[in-house]
């Protein structure tokens, strides 16, 4: 056939077919997305520290393991309160003359998704310790350690940010671990990763493939609530307070035998969970985990009951109604402020 025996015609045809399809499925949709999507009204240009932190995130190839996309499927609900939208990425443009745009959506989730990590894990102390060596706070972690973002100083200055690293992880170096500016940039970037809230009149898009709620066939309601509490603890509290409830000396306080956990001051207890705590010098500040994660009274109850009955703790269980009352009181206090 003429077409097949003439190299010009053959290769031109193949090229045109390929370029045409490329235009159809790649370039034209890309251009349309770029033109039609605008950032959400609540979105703000990132600050200088955050930009530097993002550059470090890119340079160290963190995207190899961490995605930044909440898919519109129920299983991704743990990573954000709503699915990511095109508008979430619309504000990201070319990094510089040498480097391309970095939406950092990622294709592997060897580590957790980071879309909303600024809400989920905002603690400065935790993040710095975790960057120095993740296995200090999460024993099973396979994340690389980033000690080159820190220096060791014999006598740190007052303005230095000292990181409380247990001796076992210091590999016999003497002195205090001090965060370099790079570590603080990276921290600023991680803390800045929060889902932008949608405009008030906009409906939040739903998640597909909802999980079927399990029937109570497998166990009594009380047992289920406890199991739920363990899962919630593992997902939200364990990173700092550890699975054995003993915390990390000098960084995160123990919950095992804690007077707050075992005591009767439910208002203080719920207040700490919902709104954070920074009353004790020797420990890092606790972020408002409950508010960030939008805990319901049932979830708070499950966590409290898990903490009160685990390890060697043996305090009485609380009911969701009690907690609801306490939460309402707290909410009123905040509102009156």
């Amino acid at each position: 056939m003429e077409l097949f025996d003439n190299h010009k015609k053959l290769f031109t045809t193949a090229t045109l077919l390929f370029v045409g399809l490329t235009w159809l499925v790649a370039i034209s949709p890309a251009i349309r997305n770029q033109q039609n999507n605008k950032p959400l009204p609540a979105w703000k240009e990132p600050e200088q520290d955050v930009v530097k932190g993002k550059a470090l995130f890119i340079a160290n190839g963190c995207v190899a393991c961490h995605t930044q996309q909440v898919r519109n499927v129920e299983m991704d609900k743990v990573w954000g309160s709503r699915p990511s939208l095109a508008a979430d990425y619309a504000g990201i443009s070319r990094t510089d003359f040498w480097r391309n745009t970095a939406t950092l959506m990622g294709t592997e989730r060897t580590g957790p998704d980071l879309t909303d990590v600024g809400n989920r894990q905002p603690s400065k102390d935790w993040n710095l310790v975790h960057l120095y060596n993740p296995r200090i706070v999460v024993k099973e972690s396979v994340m690389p350690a980033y000690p080159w973002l820190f220096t060791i100083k014999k006598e740190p200055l007052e303005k230095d940010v000292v990181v409380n690293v247990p001796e076992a992880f210091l590999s016999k170096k003497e002195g205090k671990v001090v965060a370099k500016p790079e570590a603080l940039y990276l921290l600023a970037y991680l803390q800045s990763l929060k889902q932008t809230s949608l405009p008030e009149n906009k409906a939040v898009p739903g998640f597909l493939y909802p999980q079927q709620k399990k029937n109570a066939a497998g166990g009594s309601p009380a047992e289920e609530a406890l199991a739920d509490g363990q899962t919630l603890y593992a997902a939200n509290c364990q990173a700092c307070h550890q699975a054995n409830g003993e915390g990390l000396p000098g960084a995160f306080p123990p919950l095992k035998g804690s007077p707050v956990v075992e005591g009767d001051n439910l208002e203080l207890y719920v207040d700490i969970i919902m709104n954070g705590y920074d009353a004790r010098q020797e420990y890092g500040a606790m972020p408002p985990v409950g508010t960030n994660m939008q805990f319901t009274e049932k979830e708070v109850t499950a966590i409290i009951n898990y903490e009160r009955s685990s390890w060697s703790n043996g305090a009485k269980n609380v009911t969701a109604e009690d907690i609801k009352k306490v939460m309402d009181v707290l909410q009123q206090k905040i509102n009156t402020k």
Partner: protein
Amino acid sequence: MKSKAFFSVIILFAVAVWPGVLPAYAQEMKLSDFSFASESAWLWIVLLIVSVLFVVAMLLRRKVTELRKSYQNQKQEDDSDKLKEHIDRFNSQQIEKLLQYKKTKRSGVLFQVSWLLLAFTLFSVNTGWAQDASTTGESSLLGEGGIVITLVLVLIPILAGFILLMIKIGNAINQQKNKMRLEEASKLAGYLKDLPDEEIDAVLKKRKKALDYALTNHELSGTEPAEDSKGLLSITREPGLPIVSVKKKALPRPNIDPALARLVLGYLVCATCWLLFGTTVGQYVGIKFVAPDADHVSWLSFGRLRPVHTNAVFWGWASLAMIGLGYYIVPRVSNIKLYSMRMGWYALYLINASVLLGTISLMAGINNGGGEYREYIWPIMLLFGLGLALTLINFLRTIARRATTEIYISNWYMVSAIIFTIVISLAAYIPYWQNGLGETIIQGYYMHQGVGMWFMLFTLGIVYYFLPQQLNKPIYSYSLGILAFWTQILFYTLIGTHHFVFSAIPWWLQTVAIVGSAGMAIPVIAGTTNFLMTFKGAWYKVKDSYTLPFFLAGIIFYFTGSMQGTAEAFRFTNLAWHFTDFTVAHSHLTMYGIICFFLWACVYTIVPRLTGREAPQITMGAHFWLALIGLMFYSIPLMYGGTLKGLLWMQGKPFMEGVTLMAPYWLWRAIGGSLMWLSHLFFAYNMYKMIVRRNVVDVREAAIQKLQYEMEETPEPVV
């Protein structure tokens, strides 16, 4: 008979694949209908397994009836007649022994017991196997198209296992028959024992004399010693112990331009170096999953080394090897000299420079923004692009001056691959459509076209030349090759965004990608059929060739790996597998199983032709088996663990549970990776043996030289 069996296998494949694909299409149409009730799908699976078992059972039944018949025959026949018959069938040696026995009246039939024991053990082992194989698992997951397809793909090796089982059972039956024969033998022995001596002596001696008659073997040749005056015979004096089966030697090809040979070898040697480097890095990165604190050096941290590994094996190893082989094929099938040798060398320098600079910059923390395989910044990737452009011009000019009318199909694939890759790179690096989600859409397109339009298309082109050449017969169907070519362009171009299913990119684009992924079944099945049918009538060549096993492994992975890609693209399978280690397993099954095995096959074909030297068979075999077994150890645990992890995520379990779950599978991956890495050392050694001329003293040559030297030294006698 052989082709009939082949067709029945094809039909089994078809029966197995379509019920999986059809429900998946149905699912596409009802997007929100997740709980697609698909009892039919797993019914099909069960049907498949049952039908295989049925076939096995039927074959077994036939064997057993055969056995029973022969047993009955033995019982019914008149014993004395049959035994007498045996006397006429003894050979000379047997008669001699018998006569001796008759003299000494001793008997020894002890070894019968050992036969019996062996037969018994074999039988018991086999029944155990049959029970294991027949159990099947069921769960609600089996309703999902993608999972069904994957299961079927896993079933292919299991089917091979069934065939092996059949052979084993056949052996056992044979043992049983032998046992019966031994019984007959003992009867015969008894019969012979009871015969009167004088009578039997006379008969036997006469028979022996008749049997011992032979010609002198000198009737035609006379008694003069043979002389090979034309040097036609070559006799190996000491064959030695056969540790590896002796394969056919590569045939030296005349008239390969030495300059072209140097160029091709240049590419292949560089490629080998990048393979060693890239997989050493990959191996180290794999170890970091098991030992995350192996080092604390920023240049060696996981996030930086991972792209170093992928880019080095992509652009360094596979690309250079492919282009190098292309430089051999294009002039050969065009029947003309290469347009420009110098451009070939420049392209090699450019690509090497690109990978070297890219590696250093990635380790230093300079990268393009994290899109996979797009990590090199544009000035570095530009060097690679220029190398491709030079290669394209070189190939096109050569083809334009070809001495043949038609353009052989290899050239379609290879030249198109280069054109497309230049288009892909331009689309990926031109900044005008890269903001916001534009970057993601382009990334999906780029990373998949890079794999499918560069590596796959180019490698298929190479295989279309080397496979028929190694089998010494034309490709089965040229038209199938053409069909595969155009459908590959049509469907493969569409599938890029299947890496971002459920993300914020437009839903219609995701659906197009999924449909395109299903469409990929056409070129894959066309290609696989074409290659396998080319083997038809030449299967016997596999056993005495060292390149064909590599081709065969490549073809099998081409089918299973590519179809797995289709299965992975469906929406449900995306839920379970996306973001898990399953993806890593898949990319190794394809890039390693398909591309690397094909490339090795072609390298082992071509290098001995260029240099006239071959690698030792034992290291070649070690390369093949370590690579194959290593790949299996690498990918199967990751697929299994990845599925478990995905299911855990779907149940909403804490993230760390998935990490602890993967620990043993990551260890297996490191073990498999080590085997693969070891195989590359063997490959590099083989390359060395094939290329480097060794300074070995040839005894005869040295003796002659010595004599000549002495002749020159001694002064001529004065007359």
